[in-house]
């Protein structure tokens, strides 16, 4: 029985969020709270030679100015600074020494009695630098590209597969060829909520930390290791996150600064970043890609070469999977995929929604469109002709893949059959209309996680896991899973998350939370059910004394005999036999690696987009879009649809508007405000439609779900670029497609 799973249940945290009851990291109060203000470096590379804080320190109410000059001694080794998402290298350590490694680096923290005072004091501090030459331009440094170092992170981000066949030979001989260079700049996540940490300095020197993070346990690990505090003395709490998009996968520097100041001053402190400072840490890396494709005269894709060069910092090798997708999506026999890095004087990039996937597919799916045109085939027909049931990189079958059905249903909903293929053939006055499409893919991952399920003495089910809900709907779907597993009415189920006192869960990323934490919640509830069943068997005159577990069901807060539903014991009565105590069970869910390794596992999508382009001005609007997703079992069509729509909106952003512009004179991102860093406004978003095609998958995880966090964005930018080509006849290979590129 699944009365809740698969139903469009409203968000259980919705009311708290829209009424302001949901509290975020910077909203927690503490007695005697001090406030920190971060000072950011104005140069990209060099040394701090002097910090003149005298005027600031003289202001009544200014408590201290922390910098490398007065930083206490902390952990020595890089290992201690490595969080769960640290790429290979030497993590950035705030205030470590006078060295400036990138523009915007935190160089001092002012602490004062009020936020306003700290901010004012910061403006009085004079910092002198000795500047060195910096390198921040990826495109001017491609000759320095090298292979990424490998490390623990490589497990989740495998390097490209070895070449197969002979690309060069086959490409030269191909009847139809395309080749192009694709570029995009850096992007910053810019969630609504700024990064912030409130450290509550408890009696006996313990710390309770409210942090903006996509994984409370990750922040706890970092603080514990860096500051040498036992785990039990650091509790990190993060029940609500005002958007993460990957930026919260690693502890950000305000956490370090707040903890440092709290420990030195032995009082509670809050450090919150400004919008400008949201441009001073991890970002989606700029990337330059080269794609060459060769096909037979009939449109059979035979040769693929996809080379990508991404930026990273001078201290860590951040990598993402940019080029592997070609080998997963297309069955060509001659394939060469390469991925290299150029270290620059910037902060280490960090995963941003569909990291690498949206980057790679924005190039690959654009090239596929171009090839389809050259081969004289409709883009959908071309993809069907080059369909694969196997991941050719691993040579494994997909555990499920209903991409064909995505093409069919998406095309039908969109009205693709009415398209006239010739570019500039669909016009309305000054407006050129274009229809384009693309494929999307993202891996379906499953990690180990733990959860606790508790049946309280008054018969409520309380389930918890130290995961996060960055707006994805985790609270809601976990509540549904728990309710269905133990046959409870949903209003009697409470799911809690974001607290290191709860059972461990991985950071929330990679679209793995529904599968990972969902499986843990299911197992914990099943285990609790077994325990309750055993207790029921021991009750006086129990009707279940001789009954086996598979002969009963959990339904309407009762255990019932399948054969005779009138034979039932209520869960409330069972817990009543426990001497006035709740009944609880904590369980671990591990992926079935033996079975999973026999298959490739991925979520797929087909994206169809209509654009209108002003022929004189080059302005582009996405007037409608349809995304059809094959995402396994859909736990909640409402939150799932929101996930996909959010991804589509961001795809429009990436395709048409969004970029962090670096001025290489200063090695500094210049459009660091939401007035100048453009993301779509309501008026930019028209008609978005989502289809979930039927897909059953018994391999991917016990719930049969595939994560939906990333798949909504991956195909959008390419579909938009392809629609722009159809509208204008111009193939734009650099994102975003701003109007100047079409004039």
């Amino acid at each position, binding site marked *: 029985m699944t009365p809740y799973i698969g139903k469009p249940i409203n968000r259980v945290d919705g009311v708290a969020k829209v009424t302001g009851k949901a509290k975020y990291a910077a909203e927690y109060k503490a007695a005697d709270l001090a406030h920190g203000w971060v000072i950011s470096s*104005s*140069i990209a590379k060099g040394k701090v030679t002097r910090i003149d804080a005298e005027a600031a320190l003289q202001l009544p109410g200014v408590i201290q100015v922390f910098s490398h000059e007065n930083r206490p001694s902390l952990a020595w080794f890089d290992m201690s600074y490595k969080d769960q998402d640290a790429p290979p290298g030497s993590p950035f350590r705030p205030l470590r020494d006078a060295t400036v490694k990138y*523009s915007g680096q935190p160089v001092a923290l002012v602490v004062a009695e009020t936020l*306003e005072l700290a*901010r*004012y004091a910061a*403006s009085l501090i004079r910092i002198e630098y000795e500047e060195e030459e910096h390198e921040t331009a990826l495109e001017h440094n491609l000759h320095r590209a090298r292979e990424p170092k490998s490390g623990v992170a490589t497990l989740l981000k495998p390097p490209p597969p070895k070449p197969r066949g002979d690309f060069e030979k086959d490409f030269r001989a191909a009847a139809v060829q395309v080749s192009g260079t694709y570029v995009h700049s850096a992007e910053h996540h810019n969630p609504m909520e700024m990064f912030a940490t409130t450290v509550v300095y408890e009696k006996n020197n313990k710390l309770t930390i409210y942090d903006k993070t996509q994984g409370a346990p990750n922040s706890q690990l970092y603080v514990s290791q860096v500051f040498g505090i036992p785990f039990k003395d650091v509790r990190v709490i993060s029940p609500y996150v005002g958007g993460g998009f990957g930026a919260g996968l690693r502890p950000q520097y305000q956490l370090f600064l707040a903890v440092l100041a709290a420990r030195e001053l032995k009082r509670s402190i809050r450090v919150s970043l*400004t919008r*400008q400072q949201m441009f001073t840490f991890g970002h989606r890396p700029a990337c330059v890609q080269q794609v060459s494709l060769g096909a037979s005269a009939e449109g059979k894709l035979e040769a693929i070469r996809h080379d990508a060069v991404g930026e990273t910092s001078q201290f860590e090798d951040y990598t993402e999977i940019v080029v592997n997708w070609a080998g997963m999506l297309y069955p060509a026999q001659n394939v060469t995929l390469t991925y290299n890095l150029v270290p620059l004087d910037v902060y280490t990039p960090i995963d941003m929604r569909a990291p690498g996937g949206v980057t790679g597919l924005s190039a690959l799916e654009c090239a596929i469109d171009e090839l389809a045109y050259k081969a004289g085939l409709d883009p959908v027909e071309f993809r069907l002709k080059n369909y694969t049931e196997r991941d050719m990189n691993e040579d494994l079958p997909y555990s499920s893949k209903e991409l064909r059905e995505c093409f069919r249903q998406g095309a039908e909903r969109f009205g693709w059959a009415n398209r006239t293929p010739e570019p500039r053939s669909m016009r309305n*006055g*000054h407006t050129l209309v274009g229809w384009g499409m693309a494929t999307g893919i993202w891996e379906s991952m499953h990690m180990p996680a733990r959860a606790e399920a508790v049946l309280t003495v008054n018969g409520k089910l309380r389930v918890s896991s130290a995961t996060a809900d960055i707006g994805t709907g985790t609270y809601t779907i976990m509540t549904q899973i728990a309710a269905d597993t133990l046959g409870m009415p949903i209003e009697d189920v409470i799911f809690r998350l974001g607290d290191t006192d709860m059972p461990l869960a991985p950071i929330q990323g990679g679209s793995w939370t529904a599968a990972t934490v969902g499986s843990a919640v299911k197992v914990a509830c099943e285990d609790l059910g077994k325990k309750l069943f055993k207790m029921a068997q021991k009750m006086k005159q129990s009707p279940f004394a001789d009954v086996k577990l598979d002969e009963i069901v959990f339904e309407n807060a009762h255990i019932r005999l399948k054969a005779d539903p009138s034979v039932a014991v209520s869960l409330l009565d069972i817990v009543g036999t426990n001497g006035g105590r709740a009944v609880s069970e904590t369980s671990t869910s591990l992926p079935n690696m033996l079975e999973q390794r026999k298959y490739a596992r991925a979520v797929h999508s087909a994206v169809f987009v209509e654009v209108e382009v002003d022929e*004189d*001005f*080059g*302005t582009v*609007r996405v007037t409608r879009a349809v995304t059809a997703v094959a995402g396994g079992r859909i736990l909640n069509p409402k939150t799932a649809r929101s996930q996909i729509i959010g991804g589509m909106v961001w795809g429009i952003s990436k395709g*048409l*508007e969004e970029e962090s*512009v670096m*001025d290489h*004179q*200063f090695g*500094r991102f*210049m*459009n*660091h*405000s939401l*007035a*100048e860093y*453009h993301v*779509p*406004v*309501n*008026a*930019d978003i028209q008609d978005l439609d989502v289809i979930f095609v039927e897909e059953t998958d018994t391999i991917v995880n016990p719930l049969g779900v595939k994560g939906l966090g990333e798949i909504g964005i991956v195909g959008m930018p390419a579909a938009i670029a392809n629609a722009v080509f159809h509208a204008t006849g111009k193939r734009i290979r650099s994102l975003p497609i*701003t*109007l*100047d590129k079409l*004039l």
Partner: protein
Amino acid sequence: MNSFSYARPSDISMAVGELVTHEGAKFIAGGTNLLDLMKENVEQPNRLVDINRLELSAIEDIEDGGLRLGALLTNADTAYHPVVESRYPLLSRAILAGASAQLRNMATNGGNLFQRTRCYYFYDLATPCNKREPGSGCGALNGYNRIHAILGTSDQQPETTCIATHPSDLCVALSALDAVVRVTGPKGERTIPFADFHRLPGDEPWRDNTIQSGELVTAIDLPAKGFSDYYAYIKIRDRQSYAFALVSVAVGLEIEDNRITDARIALGGVAHKPWRKPEAEAMLVGQMLSEANFLSVAEALLAGAKGYGHNTFKIELAKRAIVRALKQAAKLEPAS
């Protein structure tokens, strides 16, 4: 943000007096730009003189058939006022093309005149900017200058170089309408023709306008001629709302028997002030409504335009926008 004192005078002379007696004081009305600038330490007034209690929100007819807009009337109340909508629809269109509904509800007409440039370098204390810090240089000249000026720039001397633009939409329409700015200062009242209100950077890029110390804008007078039959406002930007103009064009025409009898064209997003060129406008007078005529006016308006790399596209874009706006104003094609 610095520490500042605050005053809330109840009449105009007290307000003016505040600025005379406190060097470094600034008026604040809607605060939609000033507060942002203060947060980033670009502006550091030591005293804020809140003028919101002054009675400057009226909208009234004036003797020669024109209309007086109070300085404290909000952008939203101006744009949706029935008299403005019927007699000066160009002004309504321009206002509603700017900012967002929330900002237009706060921002005042007087304040809009003092809106400062959106140049990234002006906003970022880590970079040089002659407008913010005289003599420090111009980061934009060889930097990221996509939103910057192509006309009337100052680019010869490093210490006075400035290629910033004035970001307002409202002012582009006011410029086309030949509005007059009324001010009250320590020496009494005076009026400033709109064309003389804002200035080009010249040798003093830190000066945006010709207002004198202590002067307060009290009203903006619109002359009788509102071009309500033939007008257009086109704004080209990177998204559909809440973005500053890359190029904007305000056009007002008078047409008799298919011939143009009067023409006004003002450009936004291309210079340190709304860009007018009366001799180019005069080329249209007596002419037929034809694309060829419109194109030659566009060429004349952009004569001498200079791109700096990222913004070079604006030259061609502005010409196309002018032609489109003239066609729309002349009703040769529907308004967009």
